[in-house]
Each structure stands twice: as C-alpha cells, then as structure tokens.
C-alpha cells in the first residue's frame, strides 16, 4: 500500500511519525513501530526522489500520422 504513496504523502506520514515520536508519549513498542514506519516512509521518499529516470520523451500526436 505504502508503495503507492507519493513523495509528499510519504513525507507527511514520516512527519506524523516524527511528531508523535517527538511528543514522546508513545510506549516503547509503539515508538519502535513508529520508527519502523518512519523509516519505511523515509525510504519511500528516498526512492521517490530517485524514481524518475532522467528522460525526455516526445509523444507526438497520433493524428499527425493521419
């Protein structure tokens, strides 16, 4: 599921996790879970950054071949 997230969504979720972590009211287990999730989202963000392959593609109008 998380694989469908955009950079921004993943960053938002990462920030949510960071916020609850920094609020400090989590149990250790929840904190670890939040850390895990935060890392997943961080990873997704990082992947998203590199996901685009530098490429310029030209899609000409098919009707021009008409």
């Amino acid at each position, binding site marked *: 599921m998380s694989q469908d997230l*955009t*950079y*921004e969504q993943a*960053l938002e979720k*990462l*920030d949510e*996790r*960071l916020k609850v*972590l*920094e609020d*400090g009211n989590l149990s*250790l287990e929840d*904190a670890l879970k939040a*850390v895990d999730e*935060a*890392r997943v989202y*961080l990873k997704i*963000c*990082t992947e*998203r*950054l*590199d*996901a*685009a*392959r*530098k*490429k*310029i*593609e*030209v*899609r*000409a*109008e098919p*009707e021009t071949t*008409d």
Partner: protein
Amino acid sequence: MLKPEEAQRPYTVTELANEIKRELRPLTALLVKGEVSGMKRGAKGHYSFAIRDNLSLINGFLYADDARRVTTLPEDGQVFIFRGRVDFWTQYGALRFIVDQIEFDDIGKLRARLEELKRRLEAEGAFAPERKRRLPFLPRAVALLTSPTGAVIHDLQETILERYPNMTIIVYPVLVQGAAAPMSVARALRRCNQEGAADVIVLARGGGSFEEMYAFNTELVARAILDSRLPVVTALGHTSDRTVADLVGDAECRTPTEAGARVVPKKSDLIAQLRERKRRLDREIAQRVSRETERIDLKRRRLLQVLPALVRHRMERLTRAAAELGRLSPVAQVARREEALRDRRRRLDSAAVSRLANSTSSLAARRAQDRLDRALAERFAVATRALAHREQRLVALSPDGVLARGYSITQDAASGDVIRSAAATGVDRRVRIRLGSGRLGARVEEIEP
C-alpha cells in the same frame, strides 16, 4: 421524345459530372462570407459545415491538413470569411466549398463573444480558486504541452532538469496557433490524462497577438483544461490579457522558467529535507533508548537497594529474638525456679523452727513441774496439818490424860469390857491394862473384891 438536334449522344453521368467539375474550376481562391451552421468533425480530421446567408446555403468542407493550418475553426452561428474553391464531388453529386483559410469577420465581435464565454465560465465557477487542482509536490513526470521547437520548450526543459536532474519530461507537441490549435491542445490534454504518464501538465507558448493566442481563449481548450484530472499550469508568455486557459488553469505562470520552477521542486532541497528528518528520527531513537536505559538502570538500582534491607531488618529482629531467648533459656528457667525453691526451703525451715519454738516455749511457760511440786507440797502440808489436828483432838478426847496422872484402865482381854470391879473378872482371865503410856497384858492371879 428528344429532338434530332438534341439527339446527340447523351452524357454519361460521369461525363456530366466531370463537365460540371470543369465548369466550376474558375471558382477558385474565392472569398465567401457566411454564417456557419451544422459544424461537424469527420473521422479523418476534416470538418463539414454549412455556410449561409439569409437566402442561400452552400456546404463547406475543410480538409484535415487545412484544418491544422487555419487560424481558427468555424463555429456554428459565427460569421467567417472563408477562402477556398468550389468543387463538385462526382461520386456523390455534391457541391462543396472547399475551405483552405478562415478569418474572423469581426474582431470586436469576437472579443465580445470571449467576454461572454468568460462570464459563462465564471458563472459555472470555473475560475473559482477552490476548484483549482493542487500541483503535485514532486511529480513523477512532467508533461509539456507546447510547440516541440523553439525557446519555450528549451527553457522549460532546462529549468526542470536543473532543479531536478533526473526528472522525466514527456513532451506532447501541440499546435499553439492556427485554427487547429484548440483541437490539438484539447486532444493532447485528453491524451495526457488518458496515458497518465505525467503528474502535471505545463501548457506553454511564447506569447503573441490576440489572434495568435486565440486557441487559448476557446471554449474547447477551456473545457479540456477543466476536464483534466491532472493539474494544468499555463505559461503562455507575456501578454497583458489573461487567456481563458490561464483563468481555468490550476496555476498561471508568465514564463517557462517560472513554470518549470513551479512544477518541480529543487531536488537538493528535498535531499536536505530528508536528511533533516533522518537526523531527527535518529536523534529521537537514540534519546528514547538512552532514556529507557536510564529508567531501567534506576529501577535496577532501586531493586538492588531494597534487597539488603529485606534481609537486614529481619536479621536484626532475629538477633533480638535470639538474645531474648538466651535470656529466657532453659538454664534461666531452671535457675529462676531454683531460686523460688530456695526461698521456700528457707520459709519451711523457719516455719518449722518457729513452730517448734512455739510449742517449746508454750510448754516452758506452764512451769508444769514447779506447779506440780508446789501443789503436791501444799497437798501434803494440808494433810499433815489435818492429821496433827485430829491427833490433838484424839488425845484430848481419850482417857489417856487421866492415865497420865497414874490411873489405869483394865479391860477384859476377850470382851474388852472395862473391869470396873474386881468381881467383874476371874482368875486366869486375861486382861489388858491401859497405862499413861503403853499397855500391859496381864493374867488375873487374884481377885480382891
């Protein structure tokens, strides 16, 4: 019946059609002014429509190639000046005005219609800020809808790649002016949405006159932008008038550079952002773990502190109990009782001795022996006195006193009778003679009467 002079060989239909076609050939490069109605787009990209005035009508036709070149496409109810030729299509028997150029009949009227379109769209809420789609923060790919040649696309690509070196750019080449431009743009917008290869669309052009910009004021383009699922950023050049496309677009930029910056973030910023998040995350984890470690250490210390006390208090208690028990030991128990027994023995001895002393002194106090002796002596004295007294009385009463003076009394020894006369006895009779002291036993030898 046909007359002989008329009895020439009849035209075949084709011959007649070709004759008509030939006859119409001079009608080329004609300008015709008329109002359009029944505008229809054909499958191959051509258009057919009717051109009419108050009295007459002629069918118009615009080939696809020409349609791409014309400044504007005919619109129903609109009066245009068409340039073209008349042609007769032999196989259909149809006469057509083949249009190769179209011009507006009246710019003012056009502007009025444009204002009317804007009012309509505004009434629909097409310009409302809340309707506008948010641009993606980081698109996977950017679609550029613009002319494939020229400075615009170059500037766009340069800006985007400078900010985000590995960004994917998909170029959808479109006609940005001429009658075919609205269709071209609308189609490209639809394709973008259908293909979904990009997350944002940049619709760009390098500016131009009102007429050159006409495509971006058409309802066709406006509707295509409004229908777009993907956000559309316009970058149509420096014009004083905002086009309808600008108004309905989701973001409006002046230049390609601005648009490029608008649709793509700076990758270096993002990397910095992620680094910052990672630092915070690492710091949080480290702090949390060290905080928990401290907490546990504290508790461990508390536990270690409480342990010795558990035993120590009780050990002290037991030591006290042991000391007490020592004091209450069997030896002590016995000793205490021995002491009690000694006390009783003393009391017993003392009671016994005292009891004996009581009896002894009580007996001694009686002076029994003395009293006995005295009573005895008294008793003897009384008796002795009594006897002496009787003896005196006896002496006094007895004739012994007479006898003491020399008298005597003679008694018959047998009878004891006092012999008062000699005749009272006989010879040889035994008599007793009482003297003053003692008696005599005698035998009568003679009697002297």
